[in-house]
């Protein structure tokens, strides 16, 4: 009996959290037009979320591409079709690895920073102080950070994919000796603009999801050191799970 009640309670709190996130999302969206009036704040957040993540994204993109080159070559040479390496790895990077790994890295690098920053603002009563001064913290703090993340993730995704393809080329063509002309021409022949658009759409959706989770967790964090820490952890966990879940649904919808 108590087990059933606990189950019902946790189910209810889950549904309530989903509702709270949805309402939070609507509130952020409502503040976006007014946040756009101060582009300086958004530029600063694009810098925080995007430009500062550049090094980790490029490093990871290069290594993901290189390992894809190795594994792809090993797999394809068993069938004697090494020339398909370009096509296979480009499609894998554009459609799956690029958007997903970028979103996971973004959640770890920038999402945590967003959540703990906003959480600490709440813990140190900065948000309350803003409200006292009739400054809406949604407009001044939450909306610019959300927008910055939404702009940064698709761009980071594209950079990740490009560097990744360079990495595949580095291992496949330069080191393992796949014919360069076949590599590029087969890639060009079978990758379509719609494939790239699929990657862009995924990047945008993941950007919105990860940024939303980060600002929500930060804003609703318990205003203690422990609470901020927990909010940061939850940001990474929920972002990762949500990214993979959305990835499946988007793939199923667009394939």
């Amino acid at each position, binding site marked *: 009996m108590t087990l059933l009640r606990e189950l019902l309670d946790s189910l209810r709190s889950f549904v309530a959290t989903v509702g709270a996130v949805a309402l939070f999302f609507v509130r952020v969206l409502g503040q976006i037009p007014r946040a756009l009036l101060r582009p300086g704040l958004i530029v600063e957040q694009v810098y925080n979320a*995007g430009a500062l993540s550049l090094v980790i994204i490029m490093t990871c993109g290069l290594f993901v591409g290189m390992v894809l080159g190795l594994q792809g070559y090993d797999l394809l040479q068993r069938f004697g079709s090494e020339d398909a390496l370009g096509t296979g790895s480009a499609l894998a990077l554009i459609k799956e690895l690029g958007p997903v790994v970028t979103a996971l890295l973004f959640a770890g690098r920038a999402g945590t920073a967003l959540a703990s920053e906003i959480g600490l603002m709440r813990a140190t009563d900065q948000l309350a102080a803003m409200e006292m001064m009739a400054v809406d913290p949604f407009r001044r703090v939450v909306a610019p950070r959300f927008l910055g993340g939404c702009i940064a993730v698709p761009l980071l995704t594209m*950079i990740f994919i490009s560097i990744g393809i360079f990495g595949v080329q580095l291992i496949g063509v330069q080191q393992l000796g796949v014919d360069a002309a076949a590599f590029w021409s087969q890639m*060009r022949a079978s990758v379509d603009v719609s494939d790239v658009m699929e990657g862009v759409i995924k990047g945008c959706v993941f950007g919105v999801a990860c940024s939303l989770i980060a600002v929500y967790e930060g804003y609703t964090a318990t205003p203690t050191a422990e609470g901020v820490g927990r909010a940061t952890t939850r940001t990474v966990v929920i972002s990762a799970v949500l990214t993979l879940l959305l990835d499946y649904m988007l793939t199923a919808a667009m394939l």
Partner: protein
Amino acid sequence: MRSTRAVELSTGLFVLLGFAALFFLVTQITNRQLSLNDSYEVYAHFENIGSLKPGAAVSIAGVTVGRVESIVFDQQIYKAVVRMRINSRYDKIPVDSDASIMTSGLLGGQYIGITVGGADEYLKDGDQIEFVQDALVLENLINQLVATFSRRGEQTQETEQ
């Protein structure tokens, strides 16, 4: 906190890099369709197109000269109608050329190969390619092979008896 100028500069660099990457992906990695302005359309009737798909290459002597635009089944003649867009740079393809569906490599996709004929007239927009060769369906081929072998087997048995 770094100065606003440095922040703006590196943000600008980041955004430009992102768009450069997108540009690279769209122009260098993908195949751009031949633009519709400088091309003409021809069609052909096939009994069986195998697994030919819209977007497949149309090639002459191995050179891609166009793409398959659409494939529909015509209920009047019970054949597949394949429409092809050919770059108008290649406007001297004789009308008696023949179009056959071929497979590139063992695992490759199918494409249309045009073998040039000898007529003095050339294909123009809206023309039909009369001579066609259907796709080789592997199952049919194997069936024929099996039939031939079993018949031969029976014959040898008969002669032995």
